[in-house]
């Protein structure tokens, strides 16, 4: 099962946050990064939340879900510091733009939310082959009043990917079944 959503093409940052010192950093995103990261040069989940809220990723200028920010940082956080440096931020920015485009393409009526039916299609189009029951269970977890917002959609994508990785690593024969010992089950599942 592939996860094309993760390697999605960068949407590019089209926002006016000029910054950085001329000549020092060519990347237009760097100025933006340093403005958010502050003095420590690292972005925490809270800083990411502020940033994504300001960029209005969640729509309607609602605060972007902090839990989703944590999940995203966890996904890219290779040194397990709980924060992100510039390379990770850049990667995340590309990924999240890819997700946003994907989300907008499923959100046909541009309401800023997708319904469970649209979500089913979205998850299948990412390459996951799931039964309607499993799909229902997942979609239900991430919907509020029958709708899925962008931040919940992202949380769902990240979670699905992490859990699939965990499973795949234990599916020795690649036959779709895996064995878990209790300790391992609790620990790996909790660590996502």
């Amino acid at each position, binding site marked *: 099962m592939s996860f094309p959503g993760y390697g999605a093409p960068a949407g590019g940052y089209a926002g006016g946050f000029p910054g950085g010192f001329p000549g020092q950093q060519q990347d237009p995103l760097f100025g933006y990064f340093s403005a958010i990261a502050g003095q420590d040069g690292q972005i*925490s989940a809270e800083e990411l939340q502020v940033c994504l809220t300001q960029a209005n990723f969640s729509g309607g200028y609602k605060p972007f879900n*902090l*839990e989703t920010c944590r999940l995203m940082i966890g996904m890219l956080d290779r040194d397990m510091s*709980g924060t992100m440096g510039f390379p990770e931020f850049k990667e995340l920015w590309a990924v999240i733009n890819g997700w946003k485009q994907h989300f907008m393409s499923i959100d046909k009526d541009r309401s800023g939310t997708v319904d469970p039916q649209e979500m089913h299609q979205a998850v299948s189009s990412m390459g996951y082959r*799931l*039964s309607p*029951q*499993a799909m229902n*269970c*997942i979609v*239900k*977890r991430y919907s509020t*009043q029958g709708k899925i917002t962008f931040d919940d959609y992202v949380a769902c994508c990240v*979670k*699905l990917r992490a*859990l*699939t990785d965990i*499973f795949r690593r234990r*599916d020795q024969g690649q036959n*779709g*079944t*895996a*064995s*878990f*010992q*209790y*300790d391992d*089950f*609790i*620990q790996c*599942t*909790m*660590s*996502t």
Partner: protein
Amino acid sequence: MAYHNQYRPPHYNSAPPDQAFLWNIFQRVDKDRSGSISDTELQQALSNGTWTPFNPVTVRSIIAMFDRDNKGGVNFNEFAGVWKYITDWQNIFRTYDRDNSGFIDKNELKQALTGFGYRLSDQFYNTLIEKFDRQRKGQVAFDDFIQCCIVLQRLTDVFRRYDTDQDGWIQVSYEQYLSMVFNIV
């Protein structure tokens, strides 16, 4: 980690509060007077003792636990259960929060969970703190403590359901695994 040690939900023998007292609270929490307390209303009424908003995920879990007909809130009868549930957790939390800081640290968490019958590795406590410490203090606040216990209990329950021969191992398909854990973590 010992699997056979069962998790016991808190039975802290707090005396049931009287109805008039509860009704009074219920009415104050039910801001829109709908006769049912929603996630948001409950969240606003709860305090984790640290001046930060109560963990919304915990609130949702608690409401879901007592909301029998899936209406997205709790009525007065169900609220009595919610009240008792939270007070019991509060008493437990206070027992382990020896220095009354409003947070429990790794050692206190270890004592609490060991008291519930969990046998977890030292390293795993780091993972737990890392996951449930929303305020990034290296310690766990009241609401996050409840959340931690709820998640541990649910994962253990779901594991036990699949471990029919009780040997501490399960074999599951990809979909079973996803369905098992998706609603919990």
